[in-house]
């Protein structure tokens, strides 16, 4: 087996670069999501993009646009139902996203598309089309351009919304901005890991980083490093087993998380045990 073989193919180089880019966006966003307690929101929005993807195909608009609109619809309608009923948010989410996902599945079986359901559900970064590649890159960069300048405002909003408001920050706008960025990030990750596994990208990097550091700035950096490492490892390994790239990336993420969980210097299981002694 030639270990350098993957690097001889341009599609592999592209896949490595794209997955690193997508991983960076996911890693940064995940730090906010886990602090805000929005892990389930990530899961919900990612499932809810399916009818958007199919709908966009029918209308002949870019799939990313359809996915973004559907994802945002899920998040906003969840908020609206929660505010106007006596049902709790996590329950509402469970109803809205499964409903939208099911709708997407039915639409998919009724409408002939040349997109493979498997590719949408599980990602297809090794066989990514030109258009989709560019859509992914553009959405990723746009998301980074929004997240990075606003990272301190978003942090303040997650930490103490009342204080943010008293300083004159528009917390409503930040809330919807974070939701939009979430939807956009999911759109960007679809090609890499697919709808079903996106939530892993949105949760694991932040959790791993949280175990390794107590400073938010460091957390962002650690999350990015861990995710880029996991993404590239996943892509690399999937070359040899010939597929399931998204799943390989997610497994690599989970392995790195497990290592952090056990060996993290301050918050790891071993360190905890030692401090109890």
């Amino acid at each position, binding site marked *: 087996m030639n270990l350098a073989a993957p690097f001889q193919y341009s599609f592999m180089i592209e896949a490595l670069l794209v997955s690193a880019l997508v991983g960076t966006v996911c890693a940064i966003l995940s730090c906010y999501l886990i*602090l805000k307690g929005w892990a389930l929101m990530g899961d919900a929005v990612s499932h809810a993009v399916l009818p958007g993807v199919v709908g966009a195909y029918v209308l002949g608009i870019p799939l990313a646009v359809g996915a973004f609109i559907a994802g945002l619809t899920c998040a906003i309608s969840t908020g609206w139902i929660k505010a106007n009923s006596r049902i709790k948010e996590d329950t509402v989410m469970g109803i809205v996203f499964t409903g939208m996902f099911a709708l997407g599945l039915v639409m998919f079986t009724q409408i002939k598309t040349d997109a493979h359901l498997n590719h949408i559900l599980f990602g297809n970064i090794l066989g990514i089309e030109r258009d989709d590649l560019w859509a992914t890159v553009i959405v990723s960069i746009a998301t980074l351009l929004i997240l990075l*300048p606003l990272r*301190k*405002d978003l*942090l*303040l909003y*997650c*930490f*103490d919304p*009342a*204080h*943010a*408001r*008293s*300083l*004159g*920050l528009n917390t409503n706008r930040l809330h919807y901005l974070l939701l939009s960025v979430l939807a956009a990030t999911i759109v960007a990750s679809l090609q890499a890991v697919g709808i079903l596994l996106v939530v892993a990208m949105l949760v694991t990097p932040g959790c791993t980083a*949280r175990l390794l*550091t*107590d*400073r*938010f700035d460091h*957390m962002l950096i650690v999350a990015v490093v861990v995710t880029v490492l996991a993404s590239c490892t996943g892509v690399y390994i999937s070359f040899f087993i010939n597929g399931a790239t998204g799943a390989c990336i997610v497994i690599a993420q989970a392995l790195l998380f497990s290592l952090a969980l056990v060996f993290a210097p301050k918050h790891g299981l071993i360190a905890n045990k030692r401090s109890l002694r």
Partner: protein
Amino acid sequence: MPERLSIEVTDVTAVYANGHIALRNASFKLGPGTICALVGVNGSGKSTLFKTIMGFVRPAKGTVRIAGGTVEEARRQKIVAYVPQTEEVDWSFPVSVWDVVMMGRYGHMNFLRIPRAEDRRIVSESLDRVGMTEFKERQIGELSGGQKKRVFLARALAQRGQIILLDEPFTGVDVQTESAIIDLLRELRDEGHIMLVSTHNLGSVPEFCDQVVLVNRTILAAGPTETVFTEENLSLAFGGVLRQFHFDESTIQDHDGRTVKLLTDDERPLVFGKDGHLEYKDRLGREHLVKEREKEGRD
């Protein structure tokens, strides 16, 4: 500091989203250099009052004026700072003491929130003032109850808020920290700040608050502590909620038919002496004060 720092709440009625009235026809007024206690049972509208002053809740009727301007103008000038309840904060959040106090400066920074030398100077000065400089690198969850309170007080100082709203600043705080916080509030009062303190700690109110606002879905009474913080008013504010002990025999004096009363809202008790006056913690050697207060009250 604005020319005339003040809070003027005039005839404010605030309504919850579900249509219930949280506060009806509330009016009171505070001038510069004041520590005012906000006293009432849970659900009496204390937090609604805070929210209307911060502009989070728009009154259905009536007005709130801060330093002569609207709440929005006050927010733009960062006049009102808020010190949250300990339970409201996520203490596992990956921020250090320094980071939290620096957040007080965000309103004064540019769009990218990059601290200037001036911001860093104010943050370390604020930390110094609350005695938390040596803990500035700590993650906030690694602090004691009193230290946590002081961090958020430092954030309010760093914000340069001239009106500081404190929500339950003494819960989970040891006696030593409590008096340190009270000392700091007194200093701020002497500098002209207005502090509005929501508290269940009835016993400490007469010690450091010069004004009291009693709330129960409206303002029951507002004004100087000596005249407002009376047994009748407190019974009005709390109904039967307060624990009440009557001692028919004082431990100091012989039985004479009168009683010493002790009121507590679960924290430090408030003691009314036999003459119905407020008892103080450090009464020893200050007995004459009690008599003087009583005389002032009669005049």
